[in-house]
């Protein structure tokens, strides 16, 4: 065996060295560039078992979204992730963060400069009275169980799937804007680029591929939580079955949102 290698080397020294060198370089490159990075199966599944679901609807799960107002620090990570994920045109927001300021005369001031996309760098200086309390409230689609936007759509372009997601058919939407007016939570807008209605989908495409919504993923303080209510071990199930002050926005509208808030305040509802 050894003899064979020696013969090979002496036969064409130059070619042998070339082969060895080439092999080494190729091998080390393989280590540096992992083949198929950013291919989905290399990203670990965050919602177990989702990638097996191939049908039109998710079976056996009931997703809920929880926003914890007592945790939100108003950094705007969620807004940045959302804009990056969907290339949302400037001036439109699929999700945004509002700042509530309550002064000692119980006046409530709400602002959201650029939807919280640039974060909150400056305090409000335009208020006449001392501030009593202030907090951030992230807003997104409420994924209502009885969505008013679906009822009013004249062409069937916005619909509710059997697994509870309210989605938009961008090919069918005529941009009449009825749904924008019908939404009690003002989460819809007419996208100036596609000229159709647009809104937060709780990152349906990510969820179907086993990933958490982009905003949930980036939140540094876990103020946004997403999970399955049928799974009694999930964080959202545990939170919604604890003696917390939990609430939904505008409960009197009868839309039954699947978006819940922890620590929701009287001033916000």
């Amino acid at each position: 065996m050894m003899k064979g290698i020696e013969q090979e080397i002496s036969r064409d020294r130059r070619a042998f060295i070339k082969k060895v060198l080439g092999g080494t370089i190729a091998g080390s490159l393989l280590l540096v560039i992992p083949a198929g990075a950013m291919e989905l199966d290399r990203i670990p599944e965050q919602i177990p078992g989702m990638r097996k679901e191939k049908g039109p609807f998710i079976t056996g799960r009931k997703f809920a979204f929880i926003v914890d107002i007592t945790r939100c620090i108003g950094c705007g990570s969620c807004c940045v992730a959302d804009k990056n994920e969907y290339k949302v045109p400037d001036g439109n927001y699929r999700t945004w963060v509002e700042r509530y300021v309550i002064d000692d005369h119980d006046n409530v001031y709400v602002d959201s400069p650029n939807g919280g996309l640039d974060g909150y760098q400056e305090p409000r200086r335009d208020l006449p009275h001392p501030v009593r309390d202030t907090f951030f409230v992230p807003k997104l689609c409420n994924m209502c169980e009885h969505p008013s936007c679906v009822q009013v759509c004249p062409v069937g372009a916005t619909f509710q799937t059997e697994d509870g997601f309210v989605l938009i058919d961008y090919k069918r939407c005529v941009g009449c804007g009825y749904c924008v007016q019908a939404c009690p939570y003002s989460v819809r807008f007419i996208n100036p680029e596609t000229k159709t209605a647009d809104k937060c989908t709780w990152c349906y495409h990510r969820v179907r591929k086993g990933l958490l919504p982009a905003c949930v993923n980036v939140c540094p303080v876990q103020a946004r939580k997403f999970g399955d209510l049928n799974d009694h071990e999930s964080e959202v199930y545990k939170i919604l079955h604890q003696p917390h002050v939990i609430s939904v926005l505008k409960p009197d509208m009868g839309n039954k949102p699947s978006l819940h808030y922890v620590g929701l305040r009287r001033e916000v509802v």
Partner: protein
Amino acid sequence: MVPEYKSKSYTHIVWILLVLVVVVIAGVYVRAKVLPKSFGEFGHYRGDAIFDEMNRPIRNGTNSSCLVCHPYIREMHLNGVHHTVSCEFCHGPVADHVKDGKVIAKLPKKQGKEIKRLCLRCHNQIIRARPKESIKMISMPQHLEEKHVRTDHICNQCHNVHAPLMWVKEARAMVGVEEDSK
């Protein structure tokens, strides 16, 4: 003598029925032509729209999709207090950087004042709306004055942005000070 108010001829009724039938047939035909194929498959909407939305490209990965190729950063980031901070928040979405397993472009690196602005999105004490106990807050010129450095310093001159306390801890270990920074 019964008055003759009933016509013996039924042609007008036949005509009305004929027109109705034609209208219904035309309506059904036009509806079949105009409606998309999968409309009404699951409800009053285009069934394929679900698959359209499902196949929207994913642009943000997760932290693990970044750290799989950046082992040195991984070591720092996951062991530091910033381990919950998203890579893509500061650097941009992974889809702008990697496509089909190949690096297509470099993500822009934040420099100077941009870094300070990014840090202060979370750590600015002057924004009172933040819950106090959750993360460390500083007010900007005062923090630099307290630490006896020039007030035009950028945060990353003392703090590694991936593991903010790494250099601080190392420096303390070197000089043997066990100062408790508040």
